[in-house]
């Protein structure tokens, strides 16, 4: 604080930095994670809770970058198996069409439904809000605010929880019951 007062430019710099920080905070999605105490059949350890959510949100960032830049290799650190294959195919199709899709996730409401007995898979649902923008030959053809549900299966691979199945649209029964309550 003292240097800011003594340096007139620093006085200007602080609000700019603050604004940049607020802008960054506004850009990052709002995330709500339901308690995992009742998840079974295996109990979710504290470290797993943290890394699972971090890795899943990073997967969304990676997906956004991969689709915006039409670079399927960006998916590799966070997606595996069917999810990676399907997303990579879509990106290659986009490339062929000259289309880009921009996904900007705004909110996640995450609930873990299942942690397998041997600890090799976790199923979660995520009610996601995001903006999707479609560009054709670099020109925006439309944007849309979307609120939908994702059902995701993650498996531990190479020290991360990687997304193996990534399916949107249909709300599973357990989530409907939870929402009704």
């Amino acid at each position, binding site marked *: 604080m003292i240097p800011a007062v003594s340096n007139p430019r620093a006085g200007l710099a602080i609000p700019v930095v603050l604004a940049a920080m607020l802008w960054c905070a*506004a850009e990052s999605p*709002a995330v709500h994670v339901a308690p995992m105490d009742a998840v079974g*059949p295996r109990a979710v350890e504290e470290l797993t809770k943290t890394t699972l959510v971090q890795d899943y949100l990073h997967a969304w960032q990676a*997906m956004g970058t991969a*689709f915006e830049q039409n670079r399927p290799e960006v998916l590799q650190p966070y997606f595996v198996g*069917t999810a990676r294959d*399907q*997303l990579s195919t*879509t990106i290659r*199709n*986009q490339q062929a*069409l000259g*289309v880009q*899709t921009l*996904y900007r996730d*705004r*909110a996640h409401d995450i609930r873990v*439904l*299942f942690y*397998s*007995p*041997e600890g*090799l*898979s976790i*199923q979660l*649902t995520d009610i996601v*809000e995001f903006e*999707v923008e*479609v560009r*054709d030959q670099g020109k925006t*053809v*439309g944007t*849309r*605010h*979307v*609120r*939908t*549900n994702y*059902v995701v*299966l993650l498996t531990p691979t190479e020290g991360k929880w990687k997304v193996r*199945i*990534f*399916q*949107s*649209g*249909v709300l*599973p*029964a*357990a*989530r409907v019951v939870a929402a009704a309550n």
Partner: protein
Amino acid sequence: MRLALSVLMWTAALNAEAQSALRFPPAVEAGAAFSVATSGSGPASLYIVGPSQVLRRKVQLGETVAFIASDLQIAGHYVAFLIPATNANVPAERAQFDVTPVQHVATVSFLAKPSRLPVSAPNGISGVAYVFDVFHNWILQPKPVSFQMTDSSGRSESRSTSTSNGVAWVKMNSSAKAGIAQFDAVAGSAPEEIKENRVVQEVPGDPCNIRMSALPSGHRVALETEPVRDCSGNPVPDGTIVTFTESHSGGQSTVDVPLKRGIARTEMPSVPGSVLSVASGVVMGNEIHWSGGL
């Protein structure tokens, strides 16, 4: 504040879509043919985007757009944009719809762990089954699944359940009989059941009751166990270490011997008055008070 703004934007978008003339059905089954009517006239581009599929079509406004069975096979939430050509005097339109999985199980991913375990282990093996349709979409509606464990003698145990959000799981005991067991997951309803099989090796447990005998052999004593078995009567594998110990006033001698054809044998110095004992791991066998073979 952000939540309120978000809800407001979403509601506004829904209202705009309700007034749109681009009428997609709210849900379409994966791989199903369907058609969508358009209004207006002139050329336009129809974009359908979702993370799992992207389509672009040239269409004529006022005509019906037909989708054949192979067009949309991946389940998910899709957004459609109908963009008239620049010379057309009609506004752009948009819609959202879901492609849903086919409600018929075509494949099962079955994970059985561990692949090797001791016999008679309660809840020792777990099986998790995920059910998918013919396009490998995850079926989230409940589907019947039965798990069956058949041991090497043909005796089987089964459990029936149904998937919850696309997943069914079970924990089962390993059988009492060592050998190769078959662990099956059967999903769907007869006669179109889908079966996945995993092989599980059930190995004998720890030795249960070790008995040895001692015979004089010149100036030494020959020690030999009976065939070593686990508590279910399965022969303990060759190579399992059996420890013979001879204790006497002058000290203690120990010999480790691997099982060979189910039996461990060795020779130790014959010391009258010594105590001979046998063990494997934490399991103790019988003791013999050696009188020198007299």
